[in-house]
């Protein structure tokens, strides 16, 4: 539904005289904060138990890179008290090869960084299967873009939330709730004016929690062309579920979530 608001932005750009240009705006800078990317996944078509967590820092907006965090201690603890230590490999990636999360179980993430303790909890969310993938050439608001529809059947009588990640040259995150589609066969939707026949699109469908859905809803409004226009919501600080227990003011960004994933790939015809 967010895309509805995008249309108004689109229509406003129509007059022939409008133009976009890059301008030099100096920005204030703030102290760096920890960024946690902790997606613990279970792939339907893989027995792999390898999990990775990435830690990095925020950087000034115009910097080309964000610095990795390499000296933290990271672990996940299951409900039964089993500990899974994550070992730093390179560039802020921390790996554990033994964690196979169980659907419905709750896990706790613990990070110690710069003598401060960060924690988060998450519940492993299952997901239904991808049914089939369909392509048409009448997509987008203009009706002339290639569109790819990834069909799935929503389990009835329960709230479900989905994240689709479509990867080709670009990464596209699409999120769905089943408020208006409960129990129906419905689709994840991808349309991009640049895709060509022969392009391969990697598709991942995640089952996610309501709170991760809400997090991504705000996050998506801050990125790319979604932000800044008068028909957009005002930018906001996107606070995730990782909490700094030692110093509340020094809150981190990012999220800890556990999802089952169904994957597929599709070659555009």
């Amino acid at each position, binding site marked *: *539904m*967010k895309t*509805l608001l995008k*249309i108004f932005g689109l229509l*406003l*750009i*129509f*007059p022939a*005289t409008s133009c*976009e*240009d*890059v*301008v*030099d705006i100096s*920005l*204030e*800078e703030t102290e760096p904060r920890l960024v946690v*990317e902790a*997606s613990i996944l279970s792939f339907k078509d893989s027995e792999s138990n390898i999990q990775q967590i990435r830690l990095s820092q*925020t*950087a*000034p*907006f115009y910097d*080309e890179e*964000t610095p990795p965090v390499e000296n933290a201690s990271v672990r996940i603890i299951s409900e039964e008290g089993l500990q899974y230590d994550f070992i730093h490999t390179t560039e802020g990636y921390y790996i554990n090869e033994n964690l196979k999360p169980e659907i419905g179980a709750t896990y706790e993430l613990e990070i110690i960084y710069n003598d401060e303790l960060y924690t988060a909890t998450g519940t492993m969310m299952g997901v239904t299967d991808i049914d089939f993938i369909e392509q048409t050439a*009448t*997509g*987008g*608001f*203009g*009706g002339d873009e290639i*569109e790819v529809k990834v069909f799935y059947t929503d389990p009835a009588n329960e709230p479900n939330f989905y994240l689709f990640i479509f990867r080709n040259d670009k990464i596209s*995150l699409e999120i769905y709730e089943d*408020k*208006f589609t409960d129990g*129906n066969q*419905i*689709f994840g*939707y991808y349309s991009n004016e640049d895709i060509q026949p022969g392009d391969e699109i990697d598709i991942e469908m995640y089952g996610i929690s309501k*709170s991760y859905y809400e997090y991504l809803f*705000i*996050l998506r409004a*801050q*990125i*790319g*062309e979604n*932000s*800044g*226009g*008068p*028909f957009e*919501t*005002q*930018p*906001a600080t*996107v606070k995730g579920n990782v*909490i700094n227990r030692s110093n*509340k003011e020094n*809150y981190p*960004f990012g999220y800890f979530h556990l999802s089952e994933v169904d994957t597929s790939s599709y070659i555009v015809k």
Partner: protein
Amino acid sequence: MKQNFYLFILACCFAFTSFAQESYTLSGTITDAASNETLIGVNVLIPSLNTGVVTNEYGFYSLKIPEGTFEMVISYLGFQTISEEITVSGQTSRNFKLKESSEILDEIVISQRSEGLNIKKPEMSLNRLSINTIQKMPVIFGEVDVIKSLLLLPGVSNAGEGSSGFNVRGGAVDQNLILLDEATIYNSSHLFGFFSVFNPDAIKDLKLYKGGIPAKYGGRVSSVLDIYQRDGNSRELKMQGGIGAISSRLLAEGPIVKDKGSFLIGGRSSYAHLFLKFTDNENSAYFYDLNTKLSYRLDDKNKIYFSGYFGRDVFSLSRNFKNTYGNAVLNLRWNHIFSDNIFSNLSVIYSDYYYGLTLGFVGFNWDSGIKNLNLKYDFDHYLNDTFQLKYGFQNTYYDFNPGEIEPIDESSGINYFKLNNKHAFESAVYFSAEHNISEKFSAEYGLRYSGFFRLGPDELSTYEDDSPVIYNKDRDIYEEAEPIGSQSYERAKIISSFGNFEPRLSIAYSFDLNQSVKASYNRMTQYLHLISNTSSPTPLDVWTPSGPFIEPQILDQYALGYFRNFKDGAYSLEAETFYKKVKNRIDYVNGANLIANNNIERVILNGKSRAYGLEILFRKNEGRFTGWLAYTLSKAEQKTPGRTPVETGINGGDWYNSNYNKTHDVSFTASYEANKKWEFNANFSFQTGLPSTFPTAQYSYENITVPVYSPRNSNRLPAYHRLDLSANYNPKISSEKDFKSSWSFGIYNVYNRKNAYSLTFRENSDTGVNEAVRLSLFGIIPSVTYNFSF
């Protein structure tokens, strides 16, 4: 309570009626001789008695004068002044017809006196614009536009080019009461704010109250824009129209029964396929509107009007997307004059705002809207030459359809879903007195009592501790509470009720004929809220009534002003300061999803807003060269603190800039009549850039660059400035009333300034570098319009 109130009004009436027994009533209606159109705001003076009055919205005047013979002077902008001797020896009724002054004068003398200052009257913070003045201003796309003209006045601004509506003294767009022939208009914009919904050919007069708002008006807290449509020519058939680059218009008017009844019908339409970028598709974006009016004079004491407005905007982009929205208004009015000094108007108004959307590729239709039925009865009671009373009541029934979602066909994966309709009843009684206390001192005071009842049928969710929003202390975010149950209300059952007294007071002290100070206070209540968390409202936004979780907005405004005429009114100066605060201004938690949300209460918090400022308006009212310079210095802020000491509220609970807060706003507008054929106009505006939010850092999440933003609206866009020029050419001035035509040439944004409409901070998808991207909407735009009348 209400009974006491009526008794009080009655008591007032009797007290003053008995006091004024020895004089007689002189009353009548003043019309344009050429068309029989009633004239609003005409000065009616008896110089020897030092008394006078102005005609009301229906051209009616009434005076109390003693027996005798007096000189009577009737004067009005652009018309010849009538001076006539009358003898009064009983109740006297006299109607006058004024002739246009330009028809007989060789030299064009522009007199804007009726827009000049009224030094003695207690009214302040009021701007009147005649349609003649508006038609002289250069505006975008060569279209004469009511709302664009208002933006040149002090204290009036908007949230940038191409944004809907307008902001008055730091108020929000939904806080303006917009009345077209007494009917409420919910959305004043076509094409997302590029045009206003008012067809200038059909408009007679408009007034904008920014403060000191009389008790007659209520229901919105920021301002009142009161627009009257023309009645139509009851003498002869007339046509007028214009052909422009963006839109064309045509209006016909004429008698139904000569000198008794008239009709007016006017339409406008923009050309479809205009804003096209994807030229190889079936796209269109257009609007149209239709104004109609029938008026009929039954006799000297009774007149009826039937008027209608219908407007629609249509956007479609292939079969995948179609969006339609607009207002429809039907209005029946009856003017009746009781005993020569009581003028009454009874109105029955039906108004409807509709919004519809089809998204073909997702597979659904969406409908929403608001309907209301309004009955009001207003009285103007002319008691004596120092005291005039207005009183009346208003009742409105509202039916809100917040939205209904429907699958487009059987293959659609969308389920039918309907948000609960909401119902409400709003009622108000008021009285307002205009009182000339002494030669130098006058006052307008009044009281309004408004009541609002949220009615069934409805089904409302219930929450633990009655709290639909939960504060998550660990994460410092607000989350939606899960309902613990629901409560059903039967039809017409009162779900919640509110009542508020709204006192109004304006006083004026005049030092001499040319100088005065005025002060005013008004309290107003607003029971409807436009649910919108975008920087500028969209047609998609839904109005919602106050109820169990949403309190009515309450405003207190104070204003103080100094007013002066120079050189017998050739120049005038108005300086005003104001302070206002609004209680119960809704604010939205981060990430609030307002679309198709049946439980809005789960994403809003109750906040407040305030605004203060200084406005200066210097005008040159007479001569070949006329115009004004307006300056506004102001601040408008909002604050939503946490509900408990633990909560941080919105934006840390601190005051933050409203989306439309501009520190400095200067506009200069000038018009020069070179000769009978050519007229040149210019306007220039300079404004502090609009508040915006810039990032202070970035991070990477899922390989996507995410900016970290500073607190809400803590930055500003670059300053906005622009110069527009236009020229009007009348090829021939004929004294005969035959075919007349004129050309308007205009240039918008003459020096092609790239004003920032928005700044977007994003990663360049090709280079991967983060950058700030400025979007500017309108560069230099020339336009030409051909106008005609016959």
